[in-house]
């Protein structure tokens, strides 16, 4: 049994301009000790998916009827708010993108870590504090017994993200959701933070959902990948497969857009256009307006089709490989850049 099973998750925002279907039928699962990467451009529904799992989507957002979230055999959507609070920060913890703004500026970091411990474990102030010091040491903060009394503004961005991680690890959760944990940090710090996350994963054996738009990070640390576009999963599979044989044009486009040190001079490929606003997803295949392979068939919405062993792709090209060749022979598509490169990024 998977640690977390997401089935047909639909999170819609009922706004005055219409219904924004930010997450629209997403399914995936995560196992213990596994790192699942969720990738996609801004606005593809990654963060809302994460917040839905935590049941932290704010009004006017709502997880729609028929969605299923099963965590460790428990139906998360069936829990009362009170039971859900016991899950948050205890069984499932979350790290956010902006370490600068995700910590409360008016309380010392130690207090913010102990708070989580005290609320879930009922430790005394003193015990929680020494546990906070221990956690700060675990995430590699020097002089933790002094740093524990520092306010967030006294720490650097990387240090603050370490504090966020310490906070998330406070109760040794089974699942850690990291929403772009390194996006706001500079590259050397990024590497350190990722290394820290996976060291901890190995030690505690938790499952991790890593939300990112950085494919380099995915290639390095993830076991499986879910590619999201316009509120849907467009492709999923193991990291090796996705990077070696991406099937969906969107995935191919993303891979082609990664700058590479070993290929100089050439222009970076771009995916034309932007993700449309969630109140106006196009009919049929949602990637159609931006897709170089689009043809008549794409006016029908494709399901997730088996593109290979344990690889799913929401694209008609899976069933019509001739179309792909046809476009590429005439010089279009993304494949020309990706093909024959072994997929390593």
């Amino acid at each position, binding site marked *: 049994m998977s640690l977390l099973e997401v089935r047909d998750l639909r999170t819609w925002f009922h706004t005055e301009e219409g219904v924004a279907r930010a997450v629209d039928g997403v399914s995936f699962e995560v196992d213990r000790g596994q790192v699942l990467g969720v990738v996609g451009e801004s606005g593809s529904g990654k963060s809302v998916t994460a917040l839905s799992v935590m049941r932290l989507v704010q009004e006017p957002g709502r997880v729609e009827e028929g969605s299923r979230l099963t965590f460790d055999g428990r139906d998360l959507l069936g829990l009362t708010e009170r039971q859900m609070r*016991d899950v*948050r920060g205890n069984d499932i913890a979350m790290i*956010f993108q902006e370490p600068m703004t995700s910590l409360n500026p008016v309380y010392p970091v130690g207090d913010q870590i102990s708070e989580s411990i005290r609320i*879930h474990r009922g430790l005394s102030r003193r015990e929680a504090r020494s546990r906070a010091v221990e956690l700060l040491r675990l995430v590699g903060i020097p002089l933790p017994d002094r740093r524990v009394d520092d306010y967030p503004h006294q720490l650097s961005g990387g240090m603050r993200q370490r504090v966020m991680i310490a906070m998330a690890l406070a109760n040794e959760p089974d699942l850690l959701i990291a929403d772009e944990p390194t996006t706001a940090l500079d590259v050397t710090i990024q590497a350190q933070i990722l290394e820290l996350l996976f060291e901890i994963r190995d030690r505690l054996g938790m499952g991790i959902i890593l939300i990112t738009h950085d494919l380099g990070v995915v290639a390095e640390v993830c076991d499986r990948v879910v590619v999201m576009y316009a509120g849907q999963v467009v492709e999923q599979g193991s990291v090796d497969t996705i990077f070696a044989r991406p099937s969906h044009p969107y995935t191919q486009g993303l891979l082609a857009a990664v700058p590479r040190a070993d290929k100089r001079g050439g222009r970076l490929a771009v995916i034309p256009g932007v993700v449309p606003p969630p109140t106006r997803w196009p009919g049929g295949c949602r990637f159609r307006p931006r897709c170089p392979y689009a043809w008549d068939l794409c006016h029908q919405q494709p399901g997730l089709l088996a593109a290979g062993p344990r690889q799913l792709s929401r694209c008609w090209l899976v069933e019509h490989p001739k179309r792909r060749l046809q476009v590429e022979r005439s010089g279009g598509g993304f494949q020309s850049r990706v093909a024959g490169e072994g997929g390593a990024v």
Partner: protein
Amino acid sequence: MGIYIARRLLGAVPLVLGIATIIFFVVNLAPGDPTALFFQQGVPPEILEQIRRNFGLDQPLHIRYWRWMIAFFTGDFGYSFAHARPVIDIIRETLPPTLVLAGSTLVLIFVSGVVVGVLQAVRQHRPVDRVLSVVSLFFYSMPSFWLGLMLMLLFSLKAHEWGLPFALPPTGMTSVDYEFMTFGERVVDRLRHLILPVATLSLVMAAGIARYTRGQMLEVIRQDYIRTARAKGLPEGRVVMKHALRNSLLPVITLLGLYLPLLFSGSVFVEVIFSWPGMGRVIVDGIFQRDYPLVMATSFIFALVVVIGSLVADILYAVADPRIRYD
């Protein structure tokens, strides 16, 4: 922290000197003759000249300024023309009632304003929020002198007429028979006299603070660290009261300094309307009588209280916000 306070105190010194200077020139350069009070039939011009000389009004302006500043900062506030007694005695009598009025108003507006604002924010767009919004806008847009008269009409005059049990005294600080009351009765009597003037001053300003607090809360509640607090599994009440409230109150503290001048100018009206024996009324009378020493001294005291109040607000802000302390 000590250095921060010391620096603020030091910065206040030129401010206070400047205020004293401006007050002196504004009052002394205003048209009108302070001895006009003594113009009466049969008073010979030599006597008037003598009065001028006694008050030092025959000296040129810069000499008067110099003398006044020296006297003033050595604690000699001069002699009231109209009351014919030392200004310091008048201040000693009238400052406490004003501080009682302003102090209770200050506490009340912040407590009630913040409570109402928070309540509105956590119930945004619900009936409670809408009703309180309308009520606070109603009071916010009301001139306080008019509100005072209406309250007086309703809760004092009409309440008496209709024989309602809660009729409140419309004027003064104590009842006529105050001298003959027991201690408990005196406390009740004073509180009853305080209600209408404080309500008049508070309703308008509390409405402003409520609207501001509501706005701040709604702003803070959208911040990332509030989401972090929720993700920890904290109950919503704790998220609001611990994580959101303190951050929302930071800017409200600065309002404290901004509201003090309003509070004192408001109390001038209210003291006149409710015959409150405070300094505001003395200022108004003093201005009409061109009682220069009295007007200068009382204006200065008001200004001084405002400066001290802003200083306290700054220090409170530094205490509440750890990011300020070491600047």
